[in-house]
């Protein structure tokens, strides 16, 4: 096995173990908490007796704990998360559409923020020590410090004052769309404010990551060596400095994905965006524990998988790992 394959398999094994631990956590968290919420809830009057009977059978609620645990793992793997107390339908039928909605918001926001962050971080690092650098660094730290839910509120205020943009949901309530294009236009219109909020919150952090990474690279010998070849500043940045600075950025961004989730949840709640964060928020208020339990697993698994993708990308782009 080559060093590259060994590295990748090591990461995949780690991811598998992580997912297994997350499942286990999830099981015990909801069962060992004071009052055993799961046990109580599956006797909830909100469910019909036949539903309760079926759940008891599926999750073995009358069986010993270890058998319940095995059933839970089996059910989780097959996407059976039980029934939502609040929605009265299977958790997965609520969860997966919400996950999709979250990604519709989170992925473009992350991409735009990274793209802008690389540009501003590059400028700040190259002009290190100037007023411009100070302004960019200070501004980025300020963006990073702004409470997401408050920034979103400010945008809502602005939109209400100017009567310009929708501030809630994904589509206009009750609207029927004559064409897909009309539906898409409505979606994009609803997306502007949450997307701007989330992008801004992520942007500052990526700028600082890029700046610091690039400053480290600019001190390296190979940068000076490239200068001694007669390289111009632009060439030096584009060909030598930025590629070397972007590499560590991939792993830092992957690691920070868990943090980005926080920003995403708050943004969704503020703008009532029907994603997984909004779902979690509603589930907390409705004490809909099956949904909470499943949402935790799904978000964690998505993050772990995203990290695996970043790891593979990183090791593919870095010849030091690829040709170990």
């Amino acid at each position, binding site marked *: 096995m080559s060093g590259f394959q060994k590295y990748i398999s090591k990461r995949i094994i*780690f991811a598998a*173990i*992580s997912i297994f*631990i*997350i499942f286990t956590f999830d099981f015990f*968290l*909801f069962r060992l*908490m*004071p009052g055993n*919420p799961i046990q109580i809830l599956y006797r909830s009057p909100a469910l019909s007796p036949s539903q309760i009977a079926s759940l008891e059978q599926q999750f073995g609620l009358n069986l010993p704990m270890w058998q319940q645990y095995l059933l839970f793992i089996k059910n989780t793997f097959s996407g059976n998360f039980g029934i939502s107390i609040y929605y009265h339908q299977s958790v997965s039928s609520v969860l997966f559409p919400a996950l999709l909605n979250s990604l519709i918001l989170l992925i473009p926001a992350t991409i735009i923020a990274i793209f802008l962050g690389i540009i501003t971080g590059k400028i700040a690092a190259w002009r*290190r*020590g100037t007023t411009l*650098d*100070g302004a960019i*660094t*200070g501004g980025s*730290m*300020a963006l*990073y*410090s*702004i*409470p*997401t*839910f*408050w*920034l979103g*509120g*400010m945008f*809502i*205020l602005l939109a*209400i*004052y100017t009567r310009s943009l929708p501030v809630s949901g994904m589509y206009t309530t009750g609207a029927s769309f004559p064409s897909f294009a009309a539906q898409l236009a409505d979606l994009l219109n609803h997306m502007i404010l949450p997307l701007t909020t989330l992008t801004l919150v992520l942007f500052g952090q990526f700028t600082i990551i890029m700046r*610091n990474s690039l*400053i*480290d690279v600019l*001190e390296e010998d190979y940068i000076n060596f490239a200068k001694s070849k007669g390289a111009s500043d632009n060439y030096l940045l584009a060909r030598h400095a930025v590629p070397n600075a972007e590499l560590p950025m991939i792993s830092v961004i992957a*690691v920070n994905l*868990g*943090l980005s*989730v*926080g920003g995403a*949840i*708050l943004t969704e*709640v*503020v703008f009532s965006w029907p994603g997984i964060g909004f779902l*979690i*928020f509603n589930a*907390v*208020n409705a004490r809909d524990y099956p949904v*909470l339990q499943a*949402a*935790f697993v799904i*978000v*964690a698994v998505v*993050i*772990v998988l995203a*990290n695996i993708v970043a790891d593979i990308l990183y090791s593919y782009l870095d010849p030091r790992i690829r040709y170990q």
Partner: protein
Amino acid sequence: MNDDFSFWKEFKSNRKGVAGLIIVGFFAMMALLAPLISPYDPNATNPSLFLAPSSSVHIFGTNTLGQDLFSRDVYGAQISLIVGIAAGAVAVAIGLVAGLVSGYMGGLIDEIIMRVVDFFIVIPAIVFMIIVAALLGPSLINIIMVIGLLSWAPTARIIRSMVLSIREWPFVESAKANNAGNTYIMFRHIFPNVTSVLYGNAMLAISAAIFTQAALVFLGVGNVTSISWGEIIRQAYTTGALSSGDMLYVLPPGIFIFVLIFGFILMGYALEEIMNPRLRTIKG
């Protein structure tokens, strides 16, 4: 670097650090002197003042219970600082011990601790916090512990990488040769040399904890009965004060959270710059 005097001199000449210190000092005074500053008992209700607008007696207006918002904004500094500092301290303490043991012991122990760190860095802590806080109930101590116990991993990673280089230094070798115990070497010899990184890291941990506490309260799983900035913003949303455009309801608590976090970040960044001169913006 270990010379306290020159450290203070460096810090004083770092504009970010000084600005951060002034900000944090301002809010610390606000929290301590809250009973003197606030014109009203922040919990005193007055049914006749339902969402009263700003006036000369209630400069930020009142909430649905007729409580004075200015007084509540002033008192809000207390919870933010208490939770921020306590949760930050828990996170840094755990991270420090984990990082010291991991870096110093090496081998299998290091491998295990680092995988645990990886795990805690990867999992979406905020979701976990929401669920645990919702299940456990939102007492102050629960919030502090939940935030602290889920935020130590980055500190552990940084400390470990420092320990890895420090343990190769001659004085550690000589301590080992003198048969000093592992715990003794870790805390007497290595610990003093990582404190430099610890300060900056602690500031960042505090700023993150303040943010998280406000976010949890906003989502309704924090301690919603005590006075906090996150709670004031949450009420602004739920009572419609935000959508009716009541600026003095929403602006002050948001700006306070923002500025206080910014202050801690400035201090943390300044401390990092002093320790790692490569990052300096202002050379000179």
